């Protein structure tokens, strides 16, 4: 049986390799399927025969203790793999910690006592919820301070922007000056355009009007800056 399987596997692989060079679809398809089938059916049955299965070690003798232990350890950091909680981690350290916490729960210790036991040995670093202390004030209130400061800056900035745009009242003399300037530019623009495009009177007019408006605005801005 084994010999047959080996030769079958060998042939399939060879055909598979040939098939790839010949690029015949049917050959490649059938031989690769055969290889996969052999792998699927032969390998597990062999390993089934060879390995002995062990019973899984029962994790929880007492589900109530286990529940309390898990609730506690979810908020505790494993010091070895620091981004995992003691509840999640499979590190030796976390195994020990879970064992100790189970023992302490059995000994009727309160949650606070158990956490103190760990903090005494490993420091606040084991806690995912840092306690409020002089050294952690920035951690606790930093975001709030940052929020208040940034809101203040935003409000100040928006108010300041509103104040930037001011209506400017022009004096008689300034108006006259502006009118002269406008006339000049008007004459220039229309003069040029009359020479170049006689036929496009209609468009010409509209563009001069636009020009007119633009200059108006720029004059106002200039005045604003001067003030």
């Amino acid at each position: 049986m084994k010999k047959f399987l080996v030769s079958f596997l060998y042939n399939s692989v060879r055909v598979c390799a040939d098939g790839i060079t010949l690029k015949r679809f049917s050959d490649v398809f059938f031989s690769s399927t055969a290889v996969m089938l052999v792998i699927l059916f032969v390998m597990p049955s062999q390993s089934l025969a060879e390995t002995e299965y062990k019973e899984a070690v029962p994790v929880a003798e007492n589900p109530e203790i286990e529940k309390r232990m898990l609730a506690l350890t979810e908020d505790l950091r494993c010091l070895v793999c620091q981004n995992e909680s003691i509840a999640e981690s499979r590190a030796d350290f976390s195994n020990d910690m879970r064992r100790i916490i189970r023992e302490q729960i059995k000994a009727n210790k309160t949650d606070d006592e158990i956490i103190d036991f760990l903090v005494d040995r490993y420091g606040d670093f084991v806690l995912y919820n840092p306690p409020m202390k002089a050294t952690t004030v920035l951690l606790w209130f930093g975001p709030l301070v940052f929020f208040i400061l940034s809101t203040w800056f935003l409000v100040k900035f928006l108010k300041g922007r509103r104040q930037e745009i001011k209506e400017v009242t022009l004096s008689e003399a300034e108006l006259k000056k502006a009118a002269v300037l406008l006339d000049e530019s008007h004459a220039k623009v229309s003069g040029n355009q009359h020479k170049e495009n006689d036929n496009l009177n209609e468009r010409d007019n509209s563009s001069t009007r636009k020009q007119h408006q633009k200059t108006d605005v720029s004059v106002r801005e200039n005045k604003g800056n001067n003030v």
Partner: protein
Amino acid sequence: MRYLLPLFAFLVLAVFLFVGLSLNPRQVPSPLIDKPAPEFQLYSLHEPDRIFSSKENIGKVWLLNVWASWCVACRDEHPLLVQLANSGIVPIYGLNYKDENTTAKQWLKHFGDPYIASVVDPDGAVGIDYGVYGVPETYVIDKQGIIRHKQIGPVTVDSLQNKIIPLIVELQKQT
């Protein structure tokens, strides 16, 4: 001013991030520094009849080195510990952490034994009292039995010369 403020904010952020990135997350400050070393009574590896008590060392500065034969990093620091022991600067005691006695003895025979005594902590209970989480760890304990320094991970030439030995010399001057 308009450009200075964002630039300033960026620089502050950059400094914080730079400092944050250069910190070593493995160096967790031990809460046991400047606190009395947890007491223990354990039998020694070579003389199982002799119970060693940590109180015996009151009055002298000593090192407690947590080691195990399964610990690879312990091999790195071991020659340094042997050298330190030969120099006679400080007595070194070993805490054989969660180890098998026979393999531990073989290991010491092979790599050298720097310890005055190596006590056996098979289930790691004393190790947990000392806040051990990554072997090797080395504690400097002063004459009053107070932990003055904890080296997490292997002792290096640098840490010995710049931290541990100067600290020991200073502590030995105190009464």
